[in-house]
């Protein structure tokens, strides 16, 4: 299958999700279940990644700023902007592409191979709407929240590492954090978060939903889904930066 076949089928899958739910309460239940899976299930890894990325940014920025002419508070400014603009949305979402993306692809792939999707279809349920839509909506709700948490923790991790290593005082860090702050950077990070949320949920859903074969193919679909999602995240990251900054 070539790229255009995949793309066409992906678009038809997205289009197929928009039908009236058979039972709103069941769809709501599924949405809440997915919010818990995607949000709470990924919180631990997001916290760890964010803290360490913030900490490493502070140490490496300090390492590169050797001139005494540059105030130490500049380190906090650089850490703040890199965390908000790039690390919190992009790195977090690449990690989530692995965690959430592989889970979505393997869950749907297993349902396809074990005929659970066919069973739902025969009951008269639109499986694209019931199985994929809640995952995408849950990603829209939870991933931006995770990105905000990653941003806050990343900066806090940077502050912690900077003060613990004696690079700069907490007052210097806080001063730098507040100087020259552009609120648009946060808006931009959220634009990225929503774009990446769609990529992280819809691409693995596509690869999982249309899997054919057995356990081996589910594994392959899961890997392909993560790779494709990561590439699309990096591509979208560039496009958004080129268009909006």
């Amino acid at each position, binding site marked *: 299958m070539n790229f255009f076949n995949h793309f066409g089928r992906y678009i038809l899958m997205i289009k197929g999700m928009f039908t009236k739910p*058979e*039972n709103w309460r*069941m769809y709501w239940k599924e949405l809440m279940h997915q919010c818990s899976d995607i949000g709470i299930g990924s919180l631990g890894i997001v916290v760890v990644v964010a803290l360490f990325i913030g900490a490493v940014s502070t140490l490496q920025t300090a390492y590169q700023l050797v001139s005494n002419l540059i105030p130490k508070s500049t380190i906090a400014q650089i850490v703040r902007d890199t965390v908000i603009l790039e690390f919190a949305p992009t790195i977090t979402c690449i990690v989530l592409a692995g965690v959430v993306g592989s889970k979505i692809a393997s869950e749907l792939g*297993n349902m396809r191979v*074990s*005929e*659970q999707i*066919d*069973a739902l*279809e*025969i*009951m*008269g*349920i*639109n499986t694209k709407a019931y199985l994929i839509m809640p995952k995408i909506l849950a990603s829209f709700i939870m991933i931006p929240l995770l990105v905000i948490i990653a941003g806050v923790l990343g900066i806090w991790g940077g502050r912690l590492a900077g003060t613990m290593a004696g690079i700069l005082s907490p007052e210097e860090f806080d001063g730098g954090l507040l100087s020259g702050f552009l609120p648009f950077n946060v808006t931009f990070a959220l634009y990225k978060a929503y774009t990446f949320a769609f990529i992280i949920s819809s691409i693995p859903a596509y690869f999982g939903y249309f899997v054919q074969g057995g356990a081996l193919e589910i594994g392959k679909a899961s890997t392909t889904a993560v790779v494709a999602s990561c590439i699309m995240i990096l591509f979208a990251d560039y496009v958004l930066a080129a268009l909006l900054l």
Partner: protein
Amino acid sequence: MIEIKDLKKSFGDKVVINSVSAVMETGKANLIIGASGSGKTVLMKCLVGLFEPDSGEILYSGHSFTGMEEEERKELRQQIGMLFQGSALFDSQTVEQNVMFPLDMFTRLSYAEKLKKVNEVLDRVNLKDANKKFPAEISGGMKKRVGIARAIVLNPKYLFCDEPNSGLDPQTSLVIDKLIYEVTREFNMTTVINTHDMNSVMEIGDHIVYMHQGEKEWEGNNKQIIYSKSKKLNDFIFASEFLQDVKEMRMREAEGKAPNGKNGSH
């Protein structure tokens, strides 16, 4: 009643179903039999709408399924129950939740009413004390029974069973066959069973359609199958010497010439 009229289905150049016509009767176990690759699974998937036929017509109680809009099909599908080869139970749900799922989705019953209905059907399939177990914790035969319970919980008019005996021991196979046959009669359903289990053919084959290389080769019932002159059918059904002996014995029984010791006649 389900009528199949001149159904055709191909995948690329390969013709899988070639001009098949048949009538699946209400209140009977309608068996589609045939060797692997004969097209019986594709035929069943066309019947339930998982595959679209290239041409021909499928009529459910006189209503054309092939000509229906998606919304009409959705309504009809609520009258269809299906037992899958691998049971297709939802892994993350307990037995009770699996059986309750169609009720949750398509009815406005209270939880107590739904639970009562679930317990009734689980009782009907002789499955007690398994409500809180997950599919991974129960045996293959129990999974099939949960699958049947889920398929009949909405009192469907049509029941489809795709190889209900696959992976089961002979004794459990008989139990499942008997159960399907009983619920078919009890709920007056049109039951279509896809099988290549000879016990099923001989025990519950009210109406049998034999498929060979995508075509309907023979049609009849479990009494007539013994006297069939179709070489392809005989080669398929009575493939082993043992089964040929069984055939001859059944024929002698039917003619009142059962062998000594079998029924006491001399």
